[in-house]
C-alpha cells in the first residue's frame, strides 16, 4: 500500500515538474480556404507543451565558410574579458558569446585559438555551475583533434550541445535564454561584419532567413518572461524584434511537401523578402549595439 502511494506521488510530482518545461497550446481546428491542406489555428491553452529550438552558432559558421567569407581575428571577444563579469546573467551572456567565438575559430580551423577559447568557455562553465555538462575527456579530445578540422568542429559543437541539453533538462531557462541569445547575436555580429562588397547571395539569403530564427528565439524568451532576467534580455533584443516585424513577409507563399525518387522535398516560394542594402546596414548597427551593451555590462 505504501509502495503504491509512493509511486502515485512520484508520478504526480514528475508530471507537475515536467509541465514547467514549456508553454502550453491547444490547436482548435478551423476551416481553411486552401485546397486539401489541413490547417489549425495556434491558440494558447493547457493541452500541450511547446519547445522553441534555436539553431546553434556552428551551423551559421559552417555555412558562411562555404559561402566564401574569410576569418577575422579582430571580431573575437578577447579572452582577457572573461574575468570581469560578476552576475549570473552577465556571465551567461558572455558564455554565449565565447561559445559562438569558439565555434567560429573551429569552423575556420584556427586550432590554437580554438584551444584558448575552449579553455575560457570551460572556466566560465565552472563559474556558472554547469561544468558537469562537459565530458571530462573533452579537452583531451580537442587536443587530439587539433589537426583534424571536421573532428574539431564536432568536438566543440558537442560541448555546446551538451550544455544546451543540460540546461533544457534542468529547466534552467534563464541561463539557456541568455546563452542562446548572446550566441545568436555573436554569430550575426561576425557574419554582418565580415560581409565584403558584393557578398554571396546564399549568405544574404541566410541572413534574411534569420527573421524566422529570431522569431523562435523571441518566442522562447516570451515563454519564460516571468523571470526578471529574461525580461531584461527581451528589452535588450526588442529593437531587433521591431526591425524584423517590419521586414515584409509573403504570407501567401504556398508550401509543398512531395516525394520524388523516394525522397521528400519541402518546396515553395521564399516567405521572407530580401533585405535592401539599407536594411542590412540597419540590422548590422542594431546587432553591433546589442553586442556592445552585453560586453560593456549594460544589460
Amino acid at each position, binding site marked *: 500500500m505504501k509502495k503504491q502511494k509512493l509511486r502515485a506521488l512520484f508520478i504526480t510530482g514528475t508530471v507537475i515538474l515536467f509541465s514547467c518545461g514549456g508553454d502550453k497550446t491547444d490547436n482548435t481546428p478551423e476551416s481553411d480556404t486552401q485546397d486539401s491542406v489541413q490547417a489549425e489555428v495556434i491558440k494558447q491553452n493547457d493541452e500541450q507543451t511547446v519547445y522553441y529550438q534555436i539553431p546553434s552558432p556552428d551551423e551559421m559558421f559552417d555555412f558562411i565558410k562555404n559561402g566564401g567569407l574569410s576569418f577575422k581575428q579582430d571580431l573575437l571577444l578577447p579572452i582577457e574579458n572573461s574575468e570581469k563579469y560578476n552576475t549570473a546573467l552577465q556571465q551567461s551572456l558572455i558564455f554565449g558569446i565565447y561559445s559562438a567565438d569558439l565555434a567560429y575559430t573551429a569552423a575556420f580551423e584556427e586550432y590554437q585559438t580554438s584551444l584558448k577559447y575552449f579553455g575560457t568557455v570551460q572556466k566560465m562553465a565552472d563559474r556558472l555551475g554547469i561544468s558537469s555538462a562537459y565530458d571530462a575527456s573533452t579537452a583531451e579530445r580537442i587536443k587530439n583533434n587539433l589537426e583534424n578540422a571536421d573532428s574539431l568542429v564536432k568536438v566543440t559543437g*558537442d560541448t555546446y550541445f551538451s550544455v544546451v541539453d543540460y540546461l533544457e533538462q534542468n529547466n534552467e531557462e534563464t541561463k539557456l535564454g541568455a546563452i542562446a541569445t548572446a550566441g545568436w547575436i555573436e554569430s550575426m555580429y561576425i557574419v554582418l561584419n565580415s560581409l565584403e562588397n558584393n557578398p554571396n547571395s546564399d549568405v544574404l539569403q541566410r541572413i534574411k532567413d534569420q527573421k524566422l530564427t529570431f522569431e523562435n528565439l523571441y518566442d522562447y524568451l516570451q515563454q519564460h518572461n516571468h523571470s526578471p532576467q529574461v525580461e531584461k534580455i527581451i528589452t535588450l533584443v526588442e529593437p531587433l524584434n521591431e526591425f524584423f516585424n517590419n521586414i515584409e513577409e509573403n504570407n501567401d507563399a504556398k508550401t509543398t511537401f512531395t516525394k520524388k525518387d523516394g525522397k521528400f522535398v519541402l518546396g515553395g516560394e521564399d516567405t521572407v523578402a530580401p533585405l535592401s542594402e539599407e536594411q542590412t546596414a540597419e540590422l548590422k548597427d542594431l546587432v553591433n549595439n546589442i553586442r556592445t551593451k552585453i560586453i560593456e555590462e549594460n544589460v
Partner: protein
Amino acid sequence: MKKYIFGILFLTFVSTFQAQYCNNFHRKYCYPSENEFFKYDGQSRSALFSKGQKSELTIIVYKGQDYRLSLCADENLGNNIIFKIYEVKKVKVEKVVEHKSTEDEYKTCETCNGEGYIDGETCYDCDGEGQRPTGNTVEVVTKETKVVVEKRKELLYDNSQDDFAMDIEFSATSTRKLIIEVEVPEEGGGGTSKGINDKGKGKKKLDTSEMGCIGVLIEHMPTPKSGF
C-alpha cells in the same frame, strides 16, 4: 517537521530524476544516419512523456539543406508513436473588435419640452451645444475592424499515414519554420518502439509504465548537387 523534510527531499529527488533521465536521450538512443555527411543539428531534443501526451518542437529548416528527423522512445510508450510535421503560416485576418463604454445620456433640443430656447442650431438651456443631460447613463458599443496576423499550422506529413515510420529525410528548397508534433497514444501497448536499435541502443526501460523519454534527433547536410 519530518514530513516537510521528507517532502522537500522527495521533490528534489523527483526533480533530479526527471531532469537527468531524459538527458541526451536522443544522442544515446536515436539511430543516426549512416550517411557520414549528415551532421548533428542543435535543434534536437529529448523530453519526458506520459501516455496520451502531445508536445511540439518548433524548428527552422534552411533552404539548400537536407534534413533527417528520427525518433526514439522508451519501450513502455509502445509502438505507435505519432509524429507530424506542420508548417507555421501567418495569415492576415480581419477581426471586428467591440469596445463597450458607459456614457451620459443626452436629449436633443427637440426634446427640451419647452425648457430653454433655441437660437438657430443652439439650445442654450440644454447644457451645451444642442444637448441636455438626462441624468441617466447608457452603454455605448463601438465596433472597430482590425487586421491581425494569426499563426496557423498546416499539416505536411503524418507518420500514421506512413506505417508509423520513425524517421524521415527531406530536402528543403526554401526556408521554413516547422512544428514537429509528437504524440504518445493513450494506450500505447507494449513492445519495442520502431526507431530503437535492438543491438545496444534502446535497451533502457523505465519502471513506471505510464511515462518514458522520447528523443527527436535532427541531422542536416548541404543538399547534394546532382548532374554536371
